[in-house]
């Protein structure tokens, strides 16, 4: 099993077809679909705090296109909030980054990939987990 987590910039790139990194992020999703066709379970995830930062409101008509890609929400529930708060206290890199760290730590099996423009910050918030950090 693989879980692919998107950060704010990855979401921005995916939601805007004119974004310079749009095609790159689409290629990662297409790769995920190719693996799923081969029977591998690949989950694509966006932490809800990242959605806040990216201004992605699923209920608006303008979000219809990105909603169709089936990026699952990782919800900042009470448990995740505790983990994210601890990460935020340790790293001071902002709620969205802390939530990405909490999301990565919540994945109990398989490998984790994070698509990001800021690999160094992602490595910090994910510690002690060691996801595959992909610079887009």
């Amino acid at each position, binding site marked *: 099993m*693989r879980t*692919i987590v998107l950060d704010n910039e990855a979401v921005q790139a995916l939601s805007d*077809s004119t974004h310079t990194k*749009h*095609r*790159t992020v*689409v*290629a*990662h*999703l*297409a*790769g*995920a*679909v*190719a*693996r*799923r*066709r*081969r*029977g591998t*379970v690949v989950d*694509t995830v966006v932490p809800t705090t990242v959605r806040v930062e990216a201004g992605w409101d699923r209920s608006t008509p303008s979000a*219809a*296109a990105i*909603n*169709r*890609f*089936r990026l699952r929400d990782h919800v900042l529930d009470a448990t995740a909030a505790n983990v994210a708060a601890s990460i935020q206290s340790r790293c001071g890199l902002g709620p969205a980054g802390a939530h990405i760290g909490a999301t990565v730590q919540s994945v109990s099996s398989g490998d984790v*990939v994070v698509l990001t423009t800021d690999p160094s910050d992602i490595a910090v918030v994910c510690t002690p987990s060691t996801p*595959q950090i*992909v610079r887009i």
Partner: protein
Amino acid sequence: MDDHAALDELNRLLDADDAETVNTSMRLSVSLRDAAALAVEHFSAASSATTMAAAALRQSLETLAMETALQLHYREHPDAQPSLAEIAHALAVQDGSPLAERPDLLAAAASAVVERHPDADADDVLLWAEAQLAVSA
């Protein structure tokens, strides 16, 4: 219902928080049913044959939805469609493969493999490129 509306409805149904179940009239061959029962009983493949069938159906439908979303997106934005080599490169990066550093090799592999296997996917390209690397080493 157009393709977008059908996809939106498919996604709505897949995402529904729905605990209600239904007995279906789906017909399976006896041997397939027995194979599932055997897999559950002897290989702990799932908690039940029903769970196993539902999980497989969900995986298949979710994959179809994601693939359809990409195809509809490519139809509207042809420039957004990555090449086979670009998809293979994305997978190489995700895998942490040394091939991630060889986009030239992946591009050549994509061209070569599609010539012989028009339906090749990105993993076929990765395998082809890895074989080329092994031969040349």
